[in-house]
């Protein structure tokens, strides 16, 4: 896998780290609709829909997280997910 084209994802809640590794994609939904973050995505700051599912796509198994609410911040292929806030 080409390490240059990966997202660096950190998904956590105040008391739990769900995922902290490289990933291919991050998908979820917000007020506007569904979104997919891939490497090279524009800087993005959004509120995640309450109780919606987030999917972190990796080269192995997809990680699925359902959070009561949250924020996603994407900057320079770094994705931070603040969940259950």
């Amino acid at each position, binding site marked *: 896998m080409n390490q240059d084209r990966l997202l660096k994802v950190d998904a956590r809640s105040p008391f739990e780290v769900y995922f902290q590794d490289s990933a291919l994609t991050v998908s979820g939904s917000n007020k506007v609709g569904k979104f997919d973050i891939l490497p090279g995505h524009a800087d993005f700051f959004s509120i995640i829909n309450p109780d919606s599912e987030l999917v972190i796509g990796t080269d192995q198994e997809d990680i699925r997280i359902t959070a009561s609410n949250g*924020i996603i911040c994407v900057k320079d292929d770094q994705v931070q997910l603040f969940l259950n806030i």
Partner: protein
Amino acid sequence: MRRPSAILEDTEQVETVEDLTGVFESLATTQIAKVKNKVDMSKEFFNLLWAKYASLRLDPQSRITSRARSSNGRIVFVVISAEAGLSGDIDQRLIETVLRDYDQKSTDIVVLGSHGAQQLMQRGVRYVKYFRVPTSDSYIDVSPVIEAISPYAQAKVYYEEYISIGVQDIKSIDLIQSIQTMSKDSEGSEDIISEKDTIFEPSLNEIADIMETAMMSLAFSQVILESGLAQDASRFNAMAVAKKRASELVGLYSMEYNRARRSQNDRQMREVMVALKRKKHERSKYA
């Protein structure tokens, strides 16, 4: 002097208390380790969130306080006490500190924890709302409390602070100010995020609102955790003292039991000797 069987019965009871306090002591130690870990994780989360918020270059003090313009003009004291007893005198100290600052004319009290509510009622002080202390291993839902205090102009939180296993203190903070205090470590570490180069969905203002509420909830959650930590430490100390006292009592009872046994044996021996003497006397009388 008590009978040995009665002392033995009491000893068994005190030994049970000693065992129980030992169990409570271990539970408190485990809980302290668990909560300390949660506090550290929550602080790390807060710092990361704050770093993002700070990069938006908004002033939380002016934003949050401007929201409070439609407030009822009163002050609210949020008192975080324990849910149950057996935590030493820490709740009593907490309530005494609250009442020193309390002015019925300008202030309302919101209390968390049945022990604190009980102590206020005993002193004839009325509180406007009572909540159970939120407990969860993964998520503390403080939104009902945040909602209850939102109409107030100022929210002062009184809680028990963990300093060390042996020392716990009573502390009070202004909730909004505490957000800024907590964020000191992470300020200025991120690049500026502006609407020029970033997509905000739905909007920068809505995101900032959510982040501010989240940070306020986090600050409040941390105070609850900190309070729980202090209560566990206080419970540990109370149990350690109770265990020591129970051990001393077992020692005292053991001495008393031995004395009572010896005295009972002496008495029985005396009775035998008297009987023998009497028999001997009767025998010599008829011989």
